[in-house]
């Protein structure tokens, strides 16, 4: 490690601008996370246009801080409302809400916060120690290896993020087609632009991200308002006995450490989101407990297990991103877009070309965790009040920011029409259970996949036997085929209804 670079990075992380940027990201993330229905990816997609005027370090740290803040904030609504801010906090609600109902809402929130921050910091440290050696190895990879790894990641994400491999691959296919729109690098000719000069640079990422993630989600939320409206939040009261104590912390510490391990492992694998991590950690904590019957009735270990894993997933998902340039989930895919907007290629080249930025981001991530703890601890009462904001107030404001984000990008009415098209697409994908995660990841990695595929074909002069001399590429091609067959078999087995089950449509 270059200690001079690390020192510069630490100094940059401790500037006032850094504090304001990262603190603002965490605060905004917290507020968004507390509001049920607004997920991490929605927050990031809307926030990307806000980062245009920031420096690359502040912009990326702001978005990572936002991501961390939403994960911690979503626990507040899960505990006080029994309505998780996002799916990954559903496991937190299993014990958090009963504990709040038993008159211990503040204790539940503090357990959630401490588990979140510890899971987050430990996973960030693991990221720092794993991503850099990983990136050093990845720098030795050629186009054959990169093309094989990208294909493997795509199949893996398609199979795991939605559950049905065919729907995942179909969504990925659409993402691949749309990812090739724009000027072809080789011929310099427009491809799939239908004569629109605005599409020469490709399909605008902001329109695709905001449309499929944020705007479509608001349409779904407004549809839900027809069926469900009022929510009852558990109120926080001034009660000195309602707080986390040293014996409680000592009891939950092993669970937090186990949850962090589970979350880090799940996060590092492409396609497995924080929901898988938090539920897996919750299940493991229940199995390991001496009194598993207490789970679901306000057991502190349940909250600690779910929250530590949920937050550990976020830094861990950056391991394949910084190490290989592969986004493991939607948030990481959006970060690639944010890097691209600031003219930076994320992946192993970042370590070689821009190590100061990489170390600064790591330092910013640690700072974000500390800010998260301070904000969460002292702002508990304020964030608890936000749970009372009704969704019908949130929806129009988010829609406004979606449209404004597109205008800030400078695409004008054309961009808004594209945005609307992707909102409709995202709505249909969510309604019919097609993986929008695979769609978005495929859309973002397609230019990289095409470039590596093209270089491989040119270098090999069309001779596929050359692959026999590239063992890493061969291993990933074999892994892709095995994953494909396994996931297809799993989809068919899952599709079989149990004997005697009634027909449901």
């Amino acid at each position, binding site marked *: 490690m270059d200690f001079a670079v690390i020192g510069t990075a630490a100094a940059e992380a401790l500037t006032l601008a850094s504090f304001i940027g990262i603190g603002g990201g965490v605060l905004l993330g917290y507020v968004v996370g507390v509001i049920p229905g607004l997920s991490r990816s929605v927050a990031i997609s809307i926030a990307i246009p806000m980062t245009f*005027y920031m420096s690359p370090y502040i912009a990326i740290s702001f978005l990572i801080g936002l991501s961390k803040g939403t994960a911690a904030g979503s626990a507040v609504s899960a505990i006080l409302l029994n309505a998780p801010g996002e799916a990954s906090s559903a496991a937190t609600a299993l014990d958090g809400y009963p504990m709040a109902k038993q008159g211990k809402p503040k204790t539940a929130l503090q357990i959630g916060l401490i588990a979140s921050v510890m899971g987050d910091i430990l996973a960030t440290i693991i990221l720092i120690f794993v991503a850099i050696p990983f990136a050093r190895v990845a720098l030795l990879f050629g186009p054959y290896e990169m093309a094989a790894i990208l294909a493997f990641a795509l199949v893996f994400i398609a199979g795991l993020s939605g559950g*049905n491999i*065919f*729907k995942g691959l*179909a969504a*990925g*296919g*659409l*993402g*691949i*087609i749309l990812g*090739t729109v724009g000027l*072809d690098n*080789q*011929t310099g*000719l*427009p*491809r*799939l632009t*239908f004569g629109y000069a605005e599409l020469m640079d490709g399909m605008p990422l902001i329109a695709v991200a905001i449309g499929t993630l944020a*705007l479509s989600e*608001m*349409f779904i939320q*407004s*549809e839900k*308002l*027809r069926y469900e*409206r009022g929510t009852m939040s558990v109120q926080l009261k001034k009660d000195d006995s309602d707080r986390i104590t040293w014996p409680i912390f000592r009891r939950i510490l092993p669970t937090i450490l186990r949850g962090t391990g589970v979350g880090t492992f799940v996060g590092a694998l492409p396609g497995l989101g924080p929901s898988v991590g938090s539920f897996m950690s919750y299940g493991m904590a229940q199995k390991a407990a001496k009194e598993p019957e207490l789970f679901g009735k306000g057991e502190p270990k349940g909250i600690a297990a779910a929250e530590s894993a949920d937050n550990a997933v976020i830094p861990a998902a950056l391991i394949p991103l910084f190490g290989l340039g592969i986004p493991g989930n939607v948030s990481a895919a959006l970060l690639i877009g944010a890097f691209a907007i600031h003219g930076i290629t994320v992946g192993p080249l970042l370590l070689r070309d821009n190590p100061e930025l990489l170390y600064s981001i790591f330092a910013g991530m640690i700072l974000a965790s500390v800010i998260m703890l301070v904000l969460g601890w002292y702002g508990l009462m304020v964030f608890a009040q936000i749970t009372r904001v009704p969704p*019908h*107030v949130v*929806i*129009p*404001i988010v*829609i*406004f*920011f979606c*449209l*404004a984000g597109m*205008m*800030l990008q*400078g695409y004008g*009415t054309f961009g*808004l*029409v594209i945005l*609307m098209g992707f909102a*409709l697409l995202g*709505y*249909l994908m969510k309604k*019919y259970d*097609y993986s929008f995660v695979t769609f978005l990841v495929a859309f973002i990695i*397609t230019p990289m996949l095409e470039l590596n*595929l*093209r270089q491989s*074909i*040119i270098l090999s*002069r*069309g001779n596929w036997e050359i692959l026999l001399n590239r063992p890493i590429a061969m291993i990933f091609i074999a892994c892709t085929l095995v994953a494909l067959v396994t996931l297809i078999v799993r989809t068919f087995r899952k*599709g079989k209804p149990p004997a005697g089950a009634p*027909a449901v*449509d």
Partner: protein
Amino acid sequence: MPRSDFWSGLVVAALGLLALLWVIPNYAGSNPFARMPPGLVPSIGAWLMLICGGVIAVKGLVQMLKARIVPLSADLHWDAVAWAAWPFLYVAVAIWFMSFIKITWFGAFLIAGMLILLGERRWYMILGCSVVPVALLYVLSVYLMRVGVV
């Protein structure tokens, strides 16, 4: 799910077929000297859509036949469809307006109108929720990003 799987699979497969037969041959360009034609990667995507869409549709059809479900249902709740559709129409009309008026001048009305349609009646909530986001956008675009009023 079999019915929605059948129809959605059919649409996906049809889109894949359309891309293979018309969109890619006509709009992907060509380079006879290139080892990798510009249409190769989009074609991979289109084949994925065609094959996977076909499998989803066939799987849905088999499940429908087994469960004796008809492909079309007359049990459609038009009021539910209308409730799901109006936000799309509202935003589409707003986009049309925005081709004449900047979002900063029009945003407060956009938010206020939707708040009222979603059932909000408290005047102070409508006023606050519609003016504050627009003011934030003004500060962001004019003072922070310095791109002027958007």
